[in-house]
């Protein structure tokens, strides 16, 4: 490994969303390192906070953080942090948002799941992060028009809402590029 002539730079993007929405999958798909996750078996204790009714096969949950890395060039590294929006992780958000370029907010568009994204949206708004909404379409479910999802979440018309199949790394990558473009459009 050679050392570049320029100072290495890193950028940070958050991948956020409610429980079971696919954050770990999204980060794992594009990270060069095996994502460092802290998945733990779901226990009865988390039943009060983690609603399993629409993800019955889910046996583990990310305790606090997913971490992934993409070396974009010799001297530029992208770090991805995934974290849930539960109230109990609020303190973590304070640290994570510092210096972050923005957030990809993953949402599950099913009507009974969509409302779980509100807490996360509140947090990104509160920390004034540039963000895009990635609508993760799950297996065998009908596809919800993005406009309807936007209305249901009542996000501003300027906020991009894109379809994002987290199992496909290209799809996640495209959502991240949308975020970069959104940042360029709104903050520069």
């Amino acid at each position: 490994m050679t050392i570049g002539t320029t100072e290495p730079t890193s950028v940070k993007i958050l991948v956020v969303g409610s429980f079971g929405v696919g954050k770990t999958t999204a980060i794992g798909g594009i990270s060069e390192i095996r994502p460092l996750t802290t998945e733990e078996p779901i226990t009865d204790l988390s039943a009060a906070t983690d609603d399993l009714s629409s993800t019955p096969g889910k046996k583990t949950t990310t305790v606090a953080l997913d971490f992934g890395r993409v070396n974009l060039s010799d001297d530029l590294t992208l770090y991805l942090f995934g974290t849930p929006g539960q109230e109990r992780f609020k303190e973590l958000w304070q640290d994570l948002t510092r210096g972050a370029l923005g957030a990809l907010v993953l949402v599950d568009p099913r009507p009974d799941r969509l409302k779980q994204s509100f807490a996360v949206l509140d947090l990104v708004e509160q920390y004034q992060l540039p963000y895009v909404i990635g609508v993760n379409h799950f297996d065998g479910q009908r596809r919800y028009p993005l406009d309807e999802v936007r209305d249901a979440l009542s996000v501003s018309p300027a906020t991009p809402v894109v379809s994002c199949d987290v199992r496909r790394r290209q799809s996640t990558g495209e959502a991240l590029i949308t975020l970069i473009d959104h940042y360029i459009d709104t903050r520069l």
Partner: protein
Amino acid sequence: MDDGSDLELTNSLVPYYVRAGGAALPPEEEFDRTSWVAITPEGLHARIVDRDAANIRDLLGSGPLSVHEVAARIGVPLGVCRVLLAQLRDDGLLVSRPPIPKAEAPDRELLDRVRAGLIAHLRIGA
């Protein structure tokens, strides 16, 4: 406010309105909670009639403080404090500095490199 009745002279908000000299709040982005305020050399020696404003001047005599702390130390609500600070600023007796940004904002060149890097990494069309 205890109820929805009209503002009367006995209303608890009135004293604050008077203490702020009846002036309107400065724009939201000015005198943010974490903005720093400092007294100017002129301010140190100016004759200030308003008691609260004079207290602010005395408080800042020993160095700059955050808006939030000024309000707490002189014992007025944040809104009143912001009004008073704006007036002192307009009179040239006080300067303010906006809060230090959370982190250095990325520039266009960096964002372009991130974008290009992602496209190359994922081999996707732009």
